[in-house]
């Protein structure tokens, strides 16, 4: 077990979560087949198997931290977003047998290594699902991007559903952990932004753990919702980063020394070229942003008249005193 530098002790500083609070962690794993396949082709030691192991350890740790903790896992594929955990037939916390239970459940032989039953069962379910998901991967040339927006939306809906199912005595605190491998998809920008603002309204944190290239979207998500963004330098140590940075609850994070906030690039893009600009012109009618001034806004076709300062021509007659030219160079 790793040692914390500042230990979190019961009763020390901050507010310990009440016994009735339920903490729900939803892990969204990016299982983009193209990216992970290329990891294999590059002969990297860090493959999807290792990543799934790390994610399972994280999930188990979260469940073990408290009896009131709950977990959900979503795999974000390029074709679909699938719930890895809880499975479709899984009724929360119970090994409910229904007549139509799938073979996996009824034939489950129980934990083989003395592990806590819940964890063993959960791990098995996840394994089955991920295998099934990846086996059904099809080759589609134009669909190589991860469906991050869909996965996040499913996560939000799941959280909402759990919230509705709780009775009044319990309070739900939830957060989403996104483990992203591939790059941002520009086409999903608007959807992801909407999700971010919806999460902010619902007080749901979005943490981001990025494996390969920096993601502007996830940086914004973490910044707006109050979560943490981290790009990992060593992929093999993913487990360590997950447990150190992302396992603690938001209330406990204030007591810990964690990586500081990243500077987020919030520049807007101009409507004409889609370049990121720092200073621009905004139409006061439709609020569209341009990088150059034009007298007519191309979006709403409003004509603008800006009163330029008067240009005084130098008098050609005998010079009395020099007149000032107001146009700035």
């Amino acid at each position, binding site marked *: 077990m790793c040692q914390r530098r500042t230990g979190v002790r019961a009763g020390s500083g901050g507010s310990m979560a009440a016994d009735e609070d339920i903490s729900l962690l939803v892990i969204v794993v990016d299982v983009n087949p193209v990216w992970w396949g290329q990891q294999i082709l590059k002969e990297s030691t860090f493959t999807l198997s290792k990543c799934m192991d790390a994610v399972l350890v994280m999930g188990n740790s979260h469940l073990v931290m408290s009896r009131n903790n709950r977990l959900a896992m979503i795999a974000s594929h390029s074709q679909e977003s699938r719930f890895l955990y809880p499975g479709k037939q899984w009724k929360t916390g119970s090994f409910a047998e229904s007549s139509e239970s799938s073979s996996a459940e009824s034939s489950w032989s129980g934990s083989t290594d003395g592990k806590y039953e819940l964890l063993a069962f959960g791990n098995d379910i996840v394994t089955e699902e991920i295998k099934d998901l990846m086996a059904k991967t099809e080759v589609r040339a134009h669909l190589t991007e991860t469906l991050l927006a869909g996965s996040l939306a499913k996560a939000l809906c799941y959280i909402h559903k759990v919230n509705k199912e709780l009775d009044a005595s319990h309070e739900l605190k939830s957060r989403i952990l996104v483990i992203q491998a591939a790059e941002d998809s520009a086409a999903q920008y608007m959807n992801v932004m909407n999700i971010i603002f919806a999460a902010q309204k619902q007080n749901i944190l979005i943490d981001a753990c990025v494996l390969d*290239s920096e993601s502007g979207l996830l940086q914004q998500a973490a910044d707006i919702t109050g979560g943490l963004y981290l790009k990992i330098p060593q992929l093999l140590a993913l487990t360590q980063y997950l447990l150190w940075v992302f396992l603690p609850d938001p209330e406990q994070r204030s007591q810990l020394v964690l990586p500081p906030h990243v500077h987020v690039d919030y520049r807007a893009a101009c409507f004409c070229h889609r370049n990121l600009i720092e200073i621009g012109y905004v139409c006061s009618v439709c609020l569209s942003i341009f990088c150059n001034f034009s007298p007519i806004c191309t979006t709403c076709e409003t004509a603008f008249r800006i009163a330029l300062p008067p240009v005084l021509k130098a008098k050609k007659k005998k010079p009395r005193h020099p007149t000032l030219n107001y146009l700035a160079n």
Partner: protein
Amino acid sequence: MATSSEEVLLIVKKVRHKKQDGALYLMAERVAWTPEGKDRFVISHMYADIRCQKISPEGKAKVQLQLILHTGDTTIFHFTNENIANAPAKDRDAAKDLLQQLLPKFKKKANKELEEKNRMLQEDPVLFQLYKDLVVSQVISAEEFWANRLTGNSMDNSVSNNKQDIGISAAFLADIRPQTDGCNGLRYNLTSDIIESIFRTYPAVKQKYAENVPHDMTEKEFWTRFFQSHYFHRDRINAGSKDLFSECARIDEKGLKTLVSQGVNNPLVDLTSLEDKSLGEGYGSSSAQSSSKSNKESSNAAIIRRFNHHSAMVLAAVLRKQEMHNDQNSENSSTDGNSRDSDFFQPPVKKVKLQEAIEYEDLGEKNSKKTVALNLKKADRYFHGPTPVQSQHYASSQDIINSVHCIRQEMANYNPRLTQVLSSSVASSALTDLSPGGVLMQGGTSQAINQMVPSDVQMELKHLHVAVAELLRHFWSCFPINTPFLEEKVGKMMNNLERFQMTKLRPFREKLQKLYISTNTRLDPESRCPLHKDFNVILQHSSTFMVTTLKTYSSLVI
């Protein structure tokens, strides 16, 4: 030289100053003296500078007038007019009286401004600090400093300084409780408050008082008579005109009648209907029977009338005072609680009152403002985010096929091995990354500058920043340069900025460098010490303010 526009209020000839004959001139704003034969003023003092005047005592041979200025200087004028008797004294007295009238006017004005400034400086510590930084160290002059600040504030304060007057307690008459004074006598205790209340409520009594006291009778007598009169007592039957206060009673009666006739300017309120009329009997057509006047009823009516009158007078007394204030401002004076508008405004008031009674706001229709619809030609522009800076990694179709194949293969054989997820070496290297000073924890030290810099240095930096902002505000307010005055001001501000840089910023920077960066022999910005780096940044920011300003100015000047 006396300017022709100055108004000369008084000329006194034959006034000596320092053994020289001359004449004293009292003008609208100053006092001046010129020696005989010359036409230049040798001595001239503004009234605002004069603190007070002194005269030599009566009976002394020399008739003198002394002016003492705020600075402590004294000027003595000797009035000599030998020809006419008592002329010097008269001259001197005339001058003294005029000065007595004029001096207070000017004194207040000067003081008021100073007071205002002092108050502002005391109330706002930031302003005070700014004043100290800029004016005391002579970066800008005091007039420029106060130029924009005084105008707005003085107006508001004079209005808010009006104290609220205390109203009259309606029960003041009841406070005068008589005490039995032994045998058959009553003792009334009158305090000055009660007397004032009586005077304010019943101006007729005040008038009588003014007429009779102290010429005809003493105060005590007046009040004795007042209390003895039937005017005061309950039964107000006019018992002969001998009584001093019967006239008051008559005036009161008249007053009450006018009040009732005025009525309230509210068409829905009818003051004169004193009976409960229901529509029951005769459906309103039968006239009300006038009740027989019994003595008892009339005395009741009298009491009620007196009460009403008393209340009306109490209210009127307060409003009378307001009326005196507002007399200059408005023609429509309000008396007795009625807004007595001039006839011109009569109909709308009635209409407004009727409308108020009929309509309920929340039952009416909601009038939402008519808005203009937004007409967008290219709405799809809003739906796309910024294009990514780095080009997306392009995977050829062969790559895709290969990748998918590989991953499918791999995951088909996936078996979680959770006990072999992490090796200790990898874990400890990750931990070093996450410890302070590690790769991932770089940004954290910038927060500590708050604690590393002592608070007095922070305060000084803040003051400097505020001072620079103030100077820049003066500078930028000169643009666009329309008049030669502004041109001049811009030049002055340039000089001020440069002077500020010399006198304040450079020493501050040097002080910081000496105190905090002395340990580092290599003073290059790339040095590891984050404190040094940050200080440099801070100092640079403050001087870039100035540098960009100077550059802009020089580019604009022709």
